[in-house]
């Protein structure tokens, strides 16, 4: 990591203040007004768009293997998603992914 201590603290502070303002935004500023429908529509899809886009490259080209596609990690991701979709249970999905990954890495 090349960032200096000062840079890291600057990142923490800006990220902290920015995140706080995002959380406070509608509660604090808009008060009693309603939001335009298209804004609510797009905001509804924030988690299901941002987090998968964040994770997808890590699944396909994991840093731990130097970016080479890794079948155990892909299988673990697939197991997590499958169990999550089927059971709608976060803990079961994490368990399924963890066990798949540990098992395949152990066998490999």
């Amino acid at each position, binding site marked *: *990591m090349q*960032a200096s*201590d000062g840079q*890291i*603290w600057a*990142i*923490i*502070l*800006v*990220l*902290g203040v*920015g*995140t*706080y303002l*995002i*959380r*406070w*935004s*509608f509660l604090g500023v*808009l*008060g*009693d007004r*309603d939001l335009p*429908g298209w*804004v*609510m*529509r*797009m*905001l*509804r*899809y*924030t*988690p*299901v*768009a*941002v987090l*998968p*886009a*964040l*994770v*997808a*490259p890590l*699944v396909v080209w*994991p840093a*731990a293997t130097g970016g080479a596609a890794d079948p155990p990690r892909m299988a*673990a*991701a697939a197991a*997590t*998603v499958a*169990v*999550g*979709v089927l059971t709608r*249970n*976060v*803990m079961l*999905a*994490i368990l399924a*992914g963890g066990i798949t*990954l*540990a098992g395949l890495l152990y066998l490999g």
Partner: protein
Amino acid sequence: MSPAPEPRPPSGPPAADEAGRRALARSPAQAFRHGIVQSLPFLVVIVPFALLFGLVATEAGLDLAQVMGFSVLVLAGASQFTAVQLLSDNAPAIIVILSGLAVNLRMAMYSASLMPWLRGASGRQKAWVAYALIDQSYALSIQHYERHPRLALSQRLAYFAGTAVVLCLPWMAATWAGATVGQAIPDGIALDFAMPITFLAMIAPMLRTAAHLAACFVAILGALLLAGLPSGLGLLIAAPVGMATGALVEAWTERRGMRDAGV
């Protein structure tokens, strides 16, 4: 304005069942304790995730104060991991910040959807709610508010405070534990992949409709196609395109539904 599926208080009928009567009868102190009790199961996810953050951030080269700075000042797991990941990749500071904020944009939606329920709260109360507004405190509270639409503002705020205490303080404590004693966790158990698994596990149950699936699929496709761009930039393009896709599919499904219903 198009019809919003979010119920507007107090539009729902009063919960006529026993649980509903109990919820309405609670004093703020009892509502606070109720929030605490209902949050306890989430510790099973929060504590290991925070331990892992402490460990990963320490191994990336952050000192204990910086690690705690993240967990106390930012207090948002996904963006904390994103920032540390990008810092390890030597991404420019502006990309680290923008990516971290992009991950937290979903919280604007939480803020917006809590707004109608917390009307009338003082500025100071809203300021505290904003500080503790994480995925789990939001999810628990909005469920509680929608199930019991006749709750008084003081009961709503007290319930939220109960969830916040159980979720946020252990997040900080477990981060500290991970940063200080986390080195005892053995190497070679592929901890690099705990974060992807946790996020996928959080997202998968949310893929309820065609619109959610479309948003997710397009965002993933975009992220993979744009992976060659400087760290974090692909996410800032892929995610909004995915969100717009979800919104378009939702609007399209709604129109088709109305047409089929002969409206």
